[in-house]
């Protein structure tokens, strides 16, 4: 699994020819430029996992065959999960300043 790189490497230290170790994208958090965020309503959710199947960024968190939330570190806010959810358990909301979800995002990062 790719280590998180602390400083930018020089040409002598860099891996040859841009061959990257598998799994390095785990360290590249792509979720911080969304303009909309999916908000999950646990009460409406039937755990059909359509959202898990459709999510192009593997950002639906699942434990013991049940949805447990959205991984905002990687979610780009495309809205596919909300569009596909048969029970309207996911709603897209605009990201605003001081947004609750933005805060959640920060907490996620701390963990």
């Amino acid at each position: 699994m790719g280590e998180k790189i602390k400083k930018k490497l020089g040409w002598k230290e860099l891996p040859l020819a841009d061959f990257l170790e598998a799994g390095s994208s785990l360290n590249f958090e792509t979720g911080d430029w969304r303009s909309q965020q999916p908000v999950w309503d646990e009460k409406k959710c039937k755990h059909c996992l359509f959202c898990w199947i459709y999510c192009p960024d593997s950002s639906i968190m699942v434990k013991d065959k049940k949805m447990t939330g959205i991984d905002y570190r990687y979610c780009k806010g495309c809205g596919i999960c909300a569009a596909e959810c048969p029970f309207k358990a996911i709603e897209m909301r605009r990201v605003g300043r001081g947004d609750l979800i933005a805060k959640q995002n920060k907490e996620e990062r701390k963990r």
Partner: protein
Amino acid sequence: MSEKRMAKTANEAIAEAMRQINPDVVAAYPITPATEIVQIFSQFVADGKVTTEFVPVESEHSAMSAVVGASLAGARAMTATSSQGLALMWEILYIASALRLPVIMPMVNRALSAPINIHCDHSDSMGARDSGWIQLYSESVQETYDNVIQAVRIAERSLLPVMVTTDGFILSHCLELLTPLLDKEAKDFIGEYRPKNFLLDTEHPFTVGALDLQDYYFEHKRQEAEAMIESKKIILKIGEEFERKFGRRYEFFEDYKVIDSEVATVVIGSAAGTTKVVVDQLREEKIKAGLLKLRVFRPFPAEELKELLKNVKVIAVLDRADSLNAVSGPLFSEIRNALYDLEERPKIVNYIYGLGGRDIGLKEIHSIYEDLEEINRTGKIKSLLTYLGVRE
């Protein structure tokens, strides 16, 4: 060492070398005058003489792409082409070299369209001179064969792709004497290919060709530049080993009486053979003539050329391609650049010759040496660039 001599064209000799190399994958598309190479090779595949996976692709762009994919998967991969075919491979040439893939490609030199022409000049491979490929040029059928064999080792040691060129029709379709290696000799010399990173190694998965922006692209290009510098030692070392085992000498260039010459030419490819005859005739007349035949154009052996050429009084560089830059041909630019740091520089002129297969004979080459002698006598250059043999 084999004493078996045979008459072969360069295309046949290349196919023979490929049979001995027995690459894991060959992907190719036919193009005159390189068609025979893969035509003969595909017969070897059909007859079970090689175990190669042969991929008859729909274009040269696909040929180079398939070879890049095969090489990444961990295969020893080859293709062959010429002229327009090389031009169509263009974007993938840079990918092969930047991904550091030891692809081996015989390349038969032919003029680029338009106007359409199938005969020899070096404009195709000269155009690809900055694509990060090692380029080995050949004077004869034997050199073409020997270069292909050595290219495998050079590519796999330097982790750079290697292009071995031969002159279209002049060598590709003309019979010359060839002394090939025995199959076992070739196999032992080449050795087994053991790639360090390859995609079929499922225990060690990796990503290839990921986005590489302002913060890393430059460093990766610097790595490539270093590989080209390092490849100089590798080319010499493998040339030495080849000479030790098989008796034929291969360096960056051949010094044909340059060392004590006053007037000398720099030539690439088959025209060097004709030039040697002229040099011998001039030497009989006590004229101190010499010829530097360049074998390795990429990496460019600037330091070594400078050392050899520093005592020559007047030099003519013969280009079988035009840069169309309103100055000179490509070889001339590089040779003149290499001599710039000398305290006392030789006088130097450029001849562009043989475009589209226009013949160059003893008479034309004699005329070049006559010009050089005149410059040596008078100290004056009348014309920096001459289009040799073109009708006014």
